[in-house]
């Protein structure tokens, strides 16, 4: 017994040690820094203050947080609305073809994130393919600015994270027993009723997992707003980046990071609730 125990500890120690030293301690430093003052040219002056948090709730920065939440929320909504029917179509397709269909969904994810984002710059550019296509179709007005708007950023986020949503929802749909689809309609329920009363509730954990995933990755995103926002879309990730590079205000950047971590933890907690609720309803 005690050797097994020793072995468990031996197995745990290196990995946990790594995470403790290179994740928990650094995040701890960030949290600590958020209560200190900045140096004139960067760095941290170790004088205690709440000022960074007071600033974070200043309408300006709170507004950036809200914009980020709005953009992340829209991306989440769009990804779920587009991803759900796609996952549903795969789950209801022939069993034999499902792995291939799923593989095709996941394939783009294995290419570089920057490249996937860059592809949209090429497409949406003012002189880009979409505008050229419009011109071919007879559109004669000024080329349309499709880049550098909130909407472009949302499109970029959906594009990058849609595969995960489909995968998460598919995972929960594929777990439903095949009979379930039949039984309900045999009992006289319309397809819509079957969907609304049986399938949808049962796939809720998948939706929650996918949605939280997109939201969390979107709200802290830096690359997409930076490249597709053309400097005109400011999200909290960019704000944190700016504090560390251009503003030379590490403590304030740390405070913003601390808030972002708080928001995420609240969301994950909510998601865990959804999952445990739905498990409670159907299994307990």
């Amino acid at each position: 017994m005690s050797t097994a125990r020793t072995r468990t500890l031996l197995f745990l120690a290196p990995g946990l040690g790594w995470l403790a030293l290179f994740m928990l301690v650094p995040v701890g430093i960030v949290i600590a820094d958020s209560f200190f003052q900045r140096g004139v040219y960067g760095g941290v002056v170790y004088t205690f203050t709440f000022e960074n948090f007071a600033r974070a709730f200043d309408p300006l920065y709170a507004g950036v947080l809200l914009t980020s939440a709005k953009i992340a929320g829209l991306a989440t909504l769009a990804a779920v609305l587009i991803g759900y029917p796609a996952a549903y179509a795969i789950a209801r397709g022939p069993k034999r073809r499902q792995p291939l269909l799923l593989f095709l969904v996941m394939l783009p994810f294995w290419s570089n994130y920057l490249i996937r984002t860059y592809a949209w710059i090429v497409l949406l550019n003012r002189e880009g393919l979409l505008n050229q296509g419009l011109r071919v179709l007879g559109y004669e007005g000024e080329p349309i600015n499709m880049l550098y708007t909130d909407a472009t950023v949302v499109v970029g986020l959906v594009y990058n994270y849609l595969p995960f949503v489909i995968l998460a929802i598919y995972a929960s749909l594929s777990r439903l027993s095949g009979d379930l689809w039949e039984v309900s309609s045999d009992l006289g329920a319309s397809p819509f009723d079957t969907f609304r009363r049986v399938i949808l509730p049962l796939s809720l954990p998948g939706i929650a997992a996918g949605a939280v995933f997109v939201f969390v990755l979107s709200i802290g995103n830096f690359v997409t707003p930076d490249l597709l926002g053309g400097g005109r879309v400011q999200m909290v990730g960019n704000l944190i980046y700016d504090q560390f590079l251009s503003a030379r205000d590490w403590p304030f950047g740390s405070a913003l990071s601390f808030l972002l971590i708080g928001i995420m933890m609240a969301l994950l907690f909510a998601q865990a609730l959804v999952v445990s609720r739905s498990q409670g309803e159907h299994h307990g």
Partner: protein
Amino acid sequence: MAQITRALAGTALLTLAFGGPAAAQSLVISNWDGYMPEDLLDRFTEATGIEAELSVHATNEEIMGRLVAGGGQGFDVVFVSSPFAEALHALGLTAELNHDLIPNAANLYAEAQNLEYDPGNTFSMPYAWGTTGLCYRADLVDEAPTSWDDLLDPPESLAGEVTMLSTDRWLMAAGLLALGYSVNDTDPAHIDEARDLLISATDTLLAFDDTTFYSRLVSGEASLAHAWDGWCNYGTAEDPNILFVVPEEGSDLWVDTMVIMASSENQEAAHAFLDFVLDADNHRWVAENILYKVPNEAAMAGLDPALVEAFPNLGMTPAELLAMEQLRDLGEAQRDYTRAVTEIMAAQ
């Protein structure tokens, strides 16, 4: 298990071999991408026998962040704009320059040896200098722009075809100059005023762009860009319809400098590099390649007149440049500028 052990040992070796602190023989020089002739470092090695490698940064802010974070470790020579050089100096990160090792400093214009941010070039050597203004496609605008107002409040026909610099100092300068204030103004009321003006200007903006505006002008995606003089020349080189103008309200004089990091273990080699650049022929080669003015009298004297004809802003004299206002570091007030810029970006 043996395999895993071997793999781990291999990894450790790899990491040590490639990841450890750079060996001391080779100079690490950080410059903006494309801001020196591609063969300059090879020429330097050929002339002095000193190996040098180039590291690129996209913005002053980026390299500042890196230098402040790491105490300058790993870098020997860094190219930054004058206010940033001033800040690095205030942080104690720059080395005191030994002029005995840089005899070519005598090639600099007298004006360039006594600039406000570093009189006597004690911690920085000027590499290129110029001003900021408007870069436009003469064939796409109805009327040539002449004023900062043309940038901030362009005619209807230019809506969505204008880009502006997003870097704190230059973005704010556009607003401050349009209002008749100093580019180094620290009065919070003036900063707020400039901010509001710039926010209203974002309505007609295509994008903030510090790096690719000239290619947008060439492709026709943009018609008017807030630009540094030398970088506008990149556009002119591809399309002669692209012209540069200094707005009538005036503008700033910026100086891009070379500084040696105090932490550098290759002080002598670093000095040799500065001296190499300031050599008349080498610095002329720089000017011809990057199409920016260099503050080197001997180099500019040898500049091909055809270039000045093709790119008129290369012909601006030191006296004309000195008539502009010199950019200075703002110290504490930098925070107000950063905040104002964040507000501009966040206000959509």
